């Protein structure tokens, strides 16, 4: 379980997160939706411990939280001249987990003997995801896990999230593709200007989608005067 209390974060005069409260329970999948710049990534980085100058509290039943957390960033970073296999080895030894059996556990059929920096966007995402899965984490933060990946892998990632849920893991996801949240989440939180404005349960997901369309699209297209 992860409990976030009164989390507030600012970059200089710019308030990015304001008084965030969230409880993440085991075996549940939580979705975060919000416009670009709403504060999703900052929230994730605060939970991960990659941002430290915040006020409020982030507690977890396993300590320290970061040692049990798999964090998939929106744009995973790869070191130059490192192969997929070496990247996965680094992630495993960093957490002192057994070295992967690359022949069996390479479920995305990635070219692990090639340099990771030469992978396509989708392959990079899959390699980074595979890395945090092989670390045997208890908590997962997946920032845009479906970005850039093909339809087959999309289905596989959805199945992985369901499996993690069955195993009692705690999962926090952000996605701009609403259908992926619809397929995986137990509840969705709407983040607007650094504050949670709504908590939506599965029965109301369709309504939330419609409302978001209204807010985001509305009559903006008219302004373009497309002909």
């Amino acid at each position, binding site marked *: 379980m992860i409990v976030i209390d009164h989390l507030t974060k600012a970059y200089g005069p710019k308030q990015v997160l304001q008084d965030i409260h969230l409880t993440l329970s085991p075996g549940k999948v939580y979705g975060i939706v919000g416009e670009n710049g709403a504060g999703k990534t900052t929230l994730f980085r605060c939970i991960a411990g*990659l941002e430290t100058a915040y006020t409020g509290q982030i507690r977890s039943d396993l300590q320290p939280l970061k*040692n049990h957390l798999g964090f998939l960033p929106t744009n995973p970073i790869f*070191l130059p001249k490192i192969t997929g296999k070496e990247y996965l080895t*680094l*992630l495993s030894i*960093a957490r002192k987990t057994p*070295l992967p059996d690359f022949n069996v556990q390479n479920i995305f059929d990635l070219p692990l*003997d090639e*340099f990771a*920096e030469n992978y396509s966007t989708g392959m990079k995402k899959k390699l980074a995801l595979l890395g945090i899965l092989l670390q045997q984490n208890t908590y997962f933060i997946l920032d845009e896990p479906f970005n850039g990946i093909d339809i087959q892998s999309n289905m596989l990632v959805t199945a992985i999230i369901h499996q993690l849920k069955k195993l009692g893991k705690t999962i926090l996801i952000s996605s701009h593709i609403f259908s992926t949240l619809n397929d995986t989440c137990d509840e969705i939180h709407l983040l607007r200007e650094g504050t949670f404005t709504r908590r939506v349960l599965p029965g109301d997901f369709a309504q939330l989608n419609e409302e978001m369309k209204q807010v985001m699209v509305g009559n903006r297209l008219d302004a373009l005067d497309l002909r």
Partner: protein
Amino acid sequence: MSTAGNRVAVHQIGTVNYYFKLQVRIINRRFSAFGISPLPGYLLVGFAWAMGSIYLFQQTQYAPIIYAFLALGVISRSSEHQRNEFLAGCFPAVQYRLIRLLENGILALPFAGFLAYQGYWLWSAGLIAIAELFALIRFPSSPTYVLPTPFQRYPFEFIVGFRSTYLAYFLVGLLTYQAIRVGNFNLGIFAQVLTFLLGMTYYFRPEPPYFVWIFAANPRQFLWRKVGTAVYCASWFSLPVGFILGIAFPENIAILGVAQLVGYLLLLTIIFAKYAAFPAEINLPQAFLLGLGLWFPPVLLVIIPYFYRQALQRLQTLLT
């Protein structure tokens, strides 16, 4: 100035001129980030380069080879594929060629000038010719060929570093061979120390914080794991050189042992210095201390604990 105004200004001063002014601005910003004003920065780099060059030519008769090798290493970086693709996309073909020829010429000039000053006119002319040839070539930025390394289970510094500098290890082999062939022990020691200097370069640049954050370790455990890996990996190159030299020069085994020990201490120093500045790059005072340690190794016994304490503090926010 408005965007339109900028465009007019750029047009007036000429595209090539503007490009080089931009390069100077980027270098100035790097000096500022390093904690030094640009003018003293240029003077310091110039002084360090001159001293280094003089020192090298005083030490060995193979200095022209090593010097030309180093110069081409620096110049070849401007031929990196992605960078050239960007430049070729930005500028018309003639201006692009002109920029590349000029920048490689500027980079080669100090090295060629020093070679000429030392009387190596042929080497000087050859260096300029190869530098200008490099201006016409784009080196692949991310080669697809994966050079195998013995460090697969010890990512990542030596894997990345070895793949970037493997040619330098041929030079180490060549220097060791020459040292034994001509009975020059000092040259041999230089080869042994060079393996450590190469290892040190793998720790100059900080990795993204994510690659520190992933470690389930406290700062102390993290630092000593890094040290262990560095000592193990550096031994792959330094110990064989030391061993061969020990057979060839048995009367100097004690000196070889001391050089090996100092090499390990230098690795320790660079690792602690890197994380003392983390996530920023090593700054000027730290670089000065490092230089001091290289010049007079006994100082390392003071510098190492100083960097170690700073590194522990710096890592505290990412590792608990």
